[in-house]
């Protein structure tokens, strides 16, 4: 219990001292996770929709694969991206290893299956309701895809938040491809892992509390925006 109090104390002292290192880490965390989720949404939403709407051979196999990839361990994604970006790997020349860009790539890969799988389900449910009407109006599969993504935007929002949760929580991938370099690629989760490995559990927990506060802020903000949009379209 003392550790929990110590963690709360550590968190509040970090917050109120407005530690410059902490601010840097927080901003990098946000930049990496938000960019990764935005990219993953841009890929995952149409991908999931396409899986729901386009009939092709092996579609079910792809659906199972995507849903299995939700269970992709971050460490494995990290390793694969590492091998690709490593100097000895095919994209080594880009010099992306141990940079925030590498972290964004890894998180994006991690989040795509989540957004795609959840989108598939939502779009499939909407298609059951609207499919015949859209086909009757002459919407081709592509057009139907965009229409259903738009129709389902408020439900899909939750899918994107789930993806953001995964990105902001994971440490395995960014640790490997980012290297947790102080002032360069250290983010909240790698900082937490570092303090844990040092055995400083209170500080680790304190950072965890700050991460949750951040995540709550972002989710809350997004939620209010969604509510406002939903209300305005109701009238």
């Amino acid at each position: 219990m003392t550790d929990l109090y110590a963690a709360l104390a550590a968190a509040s002292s970090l917050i109120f001292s407005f530690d410059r290192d902490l601010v840097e880490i927080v901003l990098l965390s946000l930049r990496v996770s938000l960019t990764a989720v935005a990219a993953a949404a841009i890929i995952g939403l149409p991908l999931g929709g396409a899986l729901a709407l386009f009939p092709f051979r092996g579609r079910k196999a792809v659906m199972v694969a995507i849903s299995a990839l939700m269970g992709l361990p971050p460490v494995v994604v990290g390793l694969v991206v590492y091998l690709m970006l490593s100097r000895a790997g095919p994209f080594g020349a880009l010099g992306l290893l141990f940079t925030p860009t590498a972290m964004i790539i890894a998180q994006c890969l991690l989040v795509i299956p989540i957004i795609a799988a959840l989108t598939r389900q939502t779009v499939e449910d909407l298609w059951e309701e609207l499919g015949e009407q859209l086909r009757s109006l002459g919407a081709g599969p592509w057009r139907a895809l965009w229409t259903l993504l738009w129709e389902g935007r408020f439900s899909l929002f939750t899918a994107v938040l789930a993806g953001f949760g995964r990105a902001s929580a994971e440490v395995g991938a960014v640790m490997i491809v980012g290297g947790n370099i102080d002032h360069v690629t250290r983010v909240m989760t790698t900082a937490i892992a570092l303090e844990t490995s040092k055995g400083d559990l209170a500080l680790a927990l304190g950072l965890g509390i700050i991460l949750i506060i951040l995540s709550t802020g972002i989710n809350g903000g997004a939620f209010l925006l969604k509510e406002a949009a939903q209300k305005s379209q109701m009238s």
Partner: protein
Amino acid sequence: GGNPGAAEDRFIIVASTTSTDNSGLFGHILPVFESETGIEVRVVAVGTGQAVRLAERGDADVLLVHHKPSEEKFVADGYGVRRFDVMYNDFVVVGPRSDPAAVRGMDDVAAAMAKPAAAEAVFASRGDNSGTHKKELGLWKAAGVDVAAAGGNWYRETGSGMGATLNTAGGLGAYTLADRATWISFRNKGDLEILVEGDARLFNQYGVVLVSRERHPHVKAEDGQRFIDWLVSPVGQRSIARFEIGGQQLFHPNAKKEGS
């Protein structure tokens, strides 16, 4: 160097171990080097095994670890240019205050480690091929204990970093082998304390190697070499010696004039 361009682009990557970074040593000495040379040092702190692997693949410019045989092999295989001694500290055997295997104060570390094995008192091993783990395996050999046969019974491999292993040892009431730097900076000692120290076999040498540009043309050899030169220079060595936690010096500089 690979990229001598704008000042903020001027950096090298050092693959090192968690013990050096987690203890805060780099946080102490790097600002000195950076302000002197304008070269930023980016430290990727991982297990010794992973650090060597990173350097072999050309993902670091400099390797700084604490397992001499691996470092020498690294140079011999043509991945590294030359190895330099930098500093040392030592390992300690820590365990629960109650000391069920009664090893407190022994000065023969091999004999001391044989006792928990005989008493089947729990021993937590890093089990991760780190420098510390390799050292521990060497000591078991000296003690004549076959840990592979011990299974998950009294010998527990945690497969994690030093701090985490110390935490696990604390939770299990287990003995473990730790490097002194991590032990001193470990802030969650709980029931654990140092039981055995001082045996010459617990000596822990750190070495530094520049990654070969012949093998990896993009390596920033000039800047990397400057860092190594600085580490073994009197200024660098003094900097290392001055790093203390709670009045205790964590690393002892011992660079020779010549690399090995």
